[in-house]
């Protein structure tokens, strides 16, 4: 079973964050696998009770593995994540970047363990400088990408794409470097063919899994009634031990505060407007006549249309894209004349427009900006409080 734990660890790590080493302790591996399975909704308590040294549980792990095949679609995710990149990829995900796991206790403390605040200021300044220079580089990169895309239009054999990526353009210059890329592509094609074979065999696999469950049932291994045993600890109690849960709880709290505050504002505004409106209705004849109801209906329709974009906020989420997208330069043409050249696919690949992504990013930017300002405001309040306690000094904020 040790190997099975390790296998699951490696596979799950690829989906969850990507960095692992051979030397990761088995205890840590086991904990991670248990957590990841819980995260994906695998609820069997037997799994959680397996020993931490990975010495037992191969059958339970088999069940868990089968769960993973379906629940986050383990195979598909692995294929997608490890895909060979031939294009200019970028992600459209607005989620927070995963910070690399840093060591605690960086060693910049002075002789008595004190840090000069000027050092902090300096570091912060340097960080800002890096951000600026990164911005400049990105802008430069986008100019060059655009040029390559623009100038190689019409050359790509995949008419869906239409132009070369940087990698492909470089192949022109150094065709002898093709080899490595070819090898990667070939091995990926082999993997894909293996995947197709798996799909053929799938019925057999699931039937087998059912027999495994049957065996377990016969052995009386079904879980004892959990009822009183397992107490459902609600999230707040759990947050102390799990950073992920803490983060999630924090996000929920913040979101709820934001929404409630906004709701309050909205209530007031609506009340105001309503009052004004009813006043007008009372005083103006034309609003009480039938004629207005036609206008009213039209207004309602147009507003429904306008607000349609909002329904997506509450609807169950369509799959948001966290993965990579290939950047493609394409004119805004409503009727896309796709002539399918050598590529087999008859369906246009899923396409997202940059304008949409930009809009989402703007929303995200606004929301993050607000969060930052709230934090800063908190600080201001607290510091003002401190300043008031100071004798003989007045603090004037900029």
């Amino acid at each position, binding site marked *: 079973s040790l190997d099975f734990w390790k296998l699951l660890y490696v596979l799950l790590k690829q989906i969850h964050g990507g960095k692992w080493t051979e030397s990761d302790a088995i205890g840590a591996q086991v904990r991670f696998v248990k957590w990841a399975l819980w995260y*994906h909704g695998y609820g069997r308590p037997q799994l959680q009770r397996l020993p931490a040294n990975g010495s037992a549980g191969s059958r339970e792990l088999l069940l868990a593995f089968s769960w993973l095949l379906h629940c986050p*679609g383990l195979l598909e995710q692995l294929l997608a994540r490890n895909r060979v990149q031939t294009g200019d990829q970028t992600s459209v995900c607005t989620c927070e970047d995963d910070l690399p796991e840093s060591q605690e206790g960086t060693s910049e403390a002075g002789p008595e363990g004190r840090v000069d605040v000027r050092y902090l200021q300096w570091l912060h300044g340097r960080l800002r400088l890096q951000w600026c220079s990164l911005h400049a580089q990105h802008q430069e990169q986008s100019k060059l990408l655009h040029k390559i895309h623009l100038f190689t239009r019409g050359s790509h054999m995949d008419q869906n794409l239409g132009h070369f990526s940087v990698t492909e353009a470089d192949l022109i210059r150094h065709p002898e470097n093709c080899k490595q890329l070819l090898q990667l592509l070939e091995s990926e094609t082999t993997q*894909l063919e293996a995947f197709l074979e798996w799909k053929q065999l799938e019925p057999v696999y699931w*039937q087998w899994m*059912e027999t495994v469950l049957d065996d377990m049932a016969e052995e009386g291994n079904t879980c004892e009634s959990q009822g009183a045993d397992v107490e459902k600890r609600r999230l707040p109690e759990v947050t102390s031990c799990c*950073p992920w849960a803490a983060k*999630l709880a924090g996000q929920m709290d913040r979101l709820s505060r934001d929404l409630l505050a906004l709701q309050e504002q909205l209530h007031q505004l609506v009340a105001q407007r309503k009052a004004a409106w009813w006043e007008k209705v009372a005083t103006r004849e034309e609003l009480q006549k039938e004629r207005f109801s036609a206008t009213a209906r039209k207004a309602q329709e147009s507003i429904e249309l306008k607000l349609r974009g909002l329904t997506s906020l509450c609807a169950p989420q369509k799959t948001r894209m966290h993965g990579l997208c290939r950047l493609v330069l394409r004119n805004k043409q409503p009727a896309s004349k796709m002539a399918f050249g050598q590529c087999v696919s008859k369906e246009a690949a899923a396409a997202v427009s*940059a304008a949409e992504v930009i809009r989402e990013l703007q929303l995200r930017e606004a929301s*993050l900006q607000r969060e930052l300002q709230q934090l800063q405001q908190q600080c201001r309040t607290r510091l003002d409080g401190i300043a008031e306690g100071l004798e003989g000094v007045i*603090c004037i904020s900029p």
Partner: protein
Amino acid sequence: RPSPKELEELELLNRALEKALKVRKSILETPLEAQGARGQKWAAGKISSKGVTSKQGRSHRTATGASAREVSAAAEPQETPGLSESTPNEQQSFSGGDSATVKNSTVAGKQLPDAGKKSCGFLGESSKKEDTAGAWGRSTSPGTGTLQEKGCQLKLPLPYRKAYSRNSRAWERCRLCQTSADAAAARTRFMERIQTTVSFPSRHRLTPSPAEIEEELRGLQDAPSCLRQYMEAEPADPPTLQREYESLLTLEGLQSTMSQCLQKLQLLQEDCPGDVGSCSPACVPARGQMGDSADMLAVPLLCYSSLQELRDLFALKLRVSVLHQEIALQKVMMAELLPVLEARPWLEGSAGLFRAIHSQLCEGGRRFPVLVRDELLD
């Protein structure tokens, strides 16, 4: 074979250039040369690989290639193209000295003195001078043009085209491949049985997994900004009665959306899983696409239509990332710095400390408060 004298010249020029420019080569650039790349087995490449020592010990750089990039980099210090998303290390030599011709080197030999002046304006970038970078290493046809002129006629190497087609056909087959009905049925039965072995009596069956909860929450996070945007878009004083009515309807619509959002959030909070069995410090949420597995097998295209859009996209992505970082920093600083001020008594010299901390925490380090002595005239 190029003559020793020409090689010497080449070497001297390279060294002079490198010294003069001192540009760190950490960024890749891919100046492209137009078609006929195969004919460009650059003889001097092999020789210069001994002569030129690059800063990073990459001794395979060709003289011309190196000087081209370094010249352009010096000419435009701002322009450090960060093509880091392409495959790494394109700075390979023009390998193979076998197909050298004397013509090759003489052409190069004459071009080199100009190298210092010409930037790598191959892409029509920055410099206004004519590009001759593409002409380097070309044996027969001088001035075969820039990428701009010839780009649409380029063809990828045949082996690549074949491999690419095979690969994308395989992807397509995988994407379209459906789970057979038998398999799907058996799988559903299996999943259900797994679920039933987990008895949470008070919960109905279809509770979302933590992954799903997280995903739903992410969707909601933009709700306040979005709603606020709509709210602020409504004019304060609508000109006509019709507009006023529409405005009112809009606001009411927003209200109902708002309450739906709050409801959804509440449900999520309730659904929040109780039983976190084990926890690992490495809990990083999965960033895969939840939902239909088959959709994962297609790389979606991100279509942009103009340079400005691309630039905005990159700028915004960076901005969002920077904001995430700033927020994280802010929290850490608050936790570390505020206690410092709150605990200690006010010492005479603390004004500076107070100002510094205030600026870091409240103004992002950009502005400073003013501390004024409060001296009343007695």
